[in-house]
């Protein structure tokens, strides 16, 4: 982006924050934090909410928000789980199993694309504010998940499928590899395609975008579909890592995804934000998360902290904006 240089200071600040968090936790918890096992576990956790954060970022860049990311991931995960358990009659583990797994993944991704498409249509064509559209679809997707599973969890997937969530290649967890591939893909999509460029421009000023020949409806639908797709990919990693899925799993990810976005410098009003910031936000959050786990903080206490950090980031952003030089107002 031509505009990225002005954002350098922001990214630098984030980098300092990330390193400081890392150093502080390393100093206080050296034996438990700085271990290969801990890093492996961190690397297998990052992809789940990292992908959801990227999904959230896409919606935010267009000037909207996607409150249905976790519900989308859940529904896709449940569809995949149903395929896996229903077709998994061959306990032998031959080609049939691979076939089942591929079918499950495909089904999950298609479902996630449909979810995103629905959000996109509501926002782009019907003109529903993104908050309410995705709040509604969040209820809808969760509702479908509950009806399909009758509220129970689905457990026990084929061994080969679990490899996706828990296997490693040269000590690197497979989820991390998937994540890296996804990040590279989204970097290219956002920074080097006409679609990505249009997303930024539309998010910055939808009216000017329309006047410049951008088809806003198309871009919005695509953006929400890509957002859905990333939620779908996250769901595959999610269910294969914990070998189960139940409706409502991972609700905390919604807050974390939004938190990572605002921490990473994505402007909730649209048009501003970059992936380098987002990724540093993701790592910072995971380092903290890992520290809290080592300190065995309760999930409730973590909830408090995530909420506080979210608010703190917004307050800091408020002061940063205030301090940036006042520009010539419309005279």
């Amino acid at each position, binding site marked *: 982006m*031509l505009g990225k240089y002005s954002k350098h200071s922001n990214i630098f600040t984030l980098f300092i924050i990330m390193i400081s968090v890392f150093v502080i936790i390393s100093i206080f918890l050296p034996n438990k934090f700085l271990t290969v096992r801990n890093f492996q576990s961190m690397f297998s956790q990052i992809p789940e909410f990292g992908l959801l954060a990227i999904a959230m970022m896409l919606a935010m860049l267009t000037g909207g928000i996607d409150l249905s990311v976790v519900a989308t991931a859940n529904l896709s995960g449940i569809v995949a789980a149903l395929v896996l358990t229903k077709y998994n009659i061959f306990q032998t583990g031959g080609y049939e199993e691979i076939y089942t797994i591929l079918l499950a993944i495909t089904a999950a991704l298609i479902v996630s694309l449909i979810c995103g498409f629905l959000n996109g249509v509501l926002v782009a064509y019907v003109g529903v504010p993104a908050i309410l559209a995705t709040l509604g679809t969040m209820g809808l997707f969760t509702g479908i998940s509950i009806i399909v599973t009758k509220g129970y969890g689905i457990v026990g997937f084929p061994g080969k499928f679990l490899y996706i969530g828990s296997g490693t290649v040269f000590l690197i967890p497979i989820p991390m590899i998937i994540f890296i591939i996804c990040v590279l893909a989204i970097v290219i999509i956002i*920074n080097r*395609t*006409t679609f990505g460029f249009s997303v930024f*421009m539309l998010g910055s000023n939808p009216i000017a975008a329309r*006047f*410049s*020949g951008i088809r806003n409806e198309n871009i919005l639908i695509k953006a929400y579909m890509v957002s859905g797709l990333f939620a779908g990919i996250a769901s595959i990693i999610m269910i294969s890592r914990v070998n189960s899925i139940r409706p409502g799993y991972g609700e905390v990810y919604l807050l974390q995804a939004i938190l990572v976005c605002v921490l990473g410098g994505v402007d909730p009003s649209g*048009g501003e934000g970059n992936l380098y910031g987002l990724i540093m936000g993701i790592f910072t959050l995971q380092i903290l998360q890992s520290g809290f786990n080592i300190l065995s903080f309760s999930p409730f206490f973590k909830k408090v902290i995530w909420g506080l950090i979210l608010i703190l980031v917004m307050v800091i952003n408020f002061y940063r904006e205030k301090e940036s030089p006042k520009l*010539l107002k419309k005279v």
Partner: protein
Amino acid sequence: MPENSEKFLEVKNVSKSYVGVQALDKVSLSIHKGEIDCLVGENGSGKSTLIKIIAGVVQPDEGEIIINGKSFKKLHAIDSIREGIQVIYQDLSLFPNMTIAENISLNQMVERKRKIISWHEINDIAEKEISRINKELNLEEKVENISIANKQLVAICRALTQDAKLIIMDEPTTAIAKKEIDFLFSVITDLKKRGISTLFVSHKLSEVLKISEKVTVIRDGKLVGVYNTKDLNHDKLSFYMSGRKITNSAFNYQKEKLEPKKPLLEVKDLSKKGNFQDISFKVYSGEIIGITGILGSGRTELALALFGLNKPDSGNIYIDGKLANIKYPKDAIDLGLSYLPEDRLNQGLFIKKSIGNNIVVTVLKSLLSRFNLINNNNKYKSAKEWTEELNVLAPSLDTSAQSLSGGNQQRIVIAKWLATNPKIFILDGPTVGIDVASKSNIHHIIRNLANRGMGVIIISDEIQEILNNCNRLIVIKEGRMVKEMDTNEVSEDKLLEILSRKIV
């Protein structure tokens, strides 16, 4: 000038600068009780800043403001209101979701620090004010459903409820029709009888000459002078405003040299219900066509229709003799049409984005290289080429558009369209809010484009702009073409008369 009556407001040597821009430089202004004054200046001359200072919304860097003999070094909004100064901004600041009655009365309630609302009182106040200006309005109607002219009257009534002694109206006539302007003027004359002064801010000279007793002219943030209206005429005033003799050198259309046979653009019987009707005209290569008419006449709606943003009900558009099917702006761009919109800040620019991104947004496809990915070098080259071509003054291509002056911003919008290499360029209000120097530079750019064979359409309500830059002009009134003629056949006065004449 009513010398006998006392001064209500006196602004003395007020200066104000924003980051790097001297918006006002030692400007003075005075208004007597019951006087109708005008503040004139071209767009960007500092009028708005001066109003804001009088309203107490903006604090001047230096100078003094005296209201009713009381001197204020720092005038706050609340002081200004208490002293009886009411500003009616162009956006009117009404609440669309509330009724007319409440819009009129609410500010008074707020000012009197009321805690409890009496709806009887609200209706009584509103009814009284409305009847005092001899108007009938349904008080229970929500403001979002009434016409702009009526909204304006609501805003005036609201100002009157707050014991206004001076009402400042910022460009009140831009969005309303002739008949409504006449009614507005009769209201202002009535106010004078009640001892209320009016400061009328405008750049429309004929109206200024008609309504005012005294005119204060500012240019480039400096006071040009204060004149009695009876000593002024159109030419003098326009000279004071622009600082130069307007030489009526019309744009010289080089028909002989270009010898176009078929029109670049032909519009045939284009109609859209409630917008415009039976519009037909042709634009040839190298021509600059002016389309003029007041706001709401359908001029912008017509341009939007050509650009795929306002689907016409019937009629055809031909480009290069071929029937054009324009559904979206993209289609128009692909056919060689460009449209510089009326509202630069909202429609033309991505104000927070860099200059570079603002320019290349229309030509994304041409930036692609291997694997259909955007090549940042192409992007940089393309943007640089156009900023140099149009002399955009900016530290770098990464500078965001919001830090530029109006003139430079507009040059960027022009650049973004020139990058698409258009055959036909429609410019809607190309110099609104732009300082004099930049204005003539932009006119120069437009003329050059035409000389290179582009077909240009300028939409403007500035008569001078149309007469000086176009070879042909079309007058639109209430959605219909009322006149089409060569600019050298018509004088300014004649055109004014056509514009204000009623349709039979």
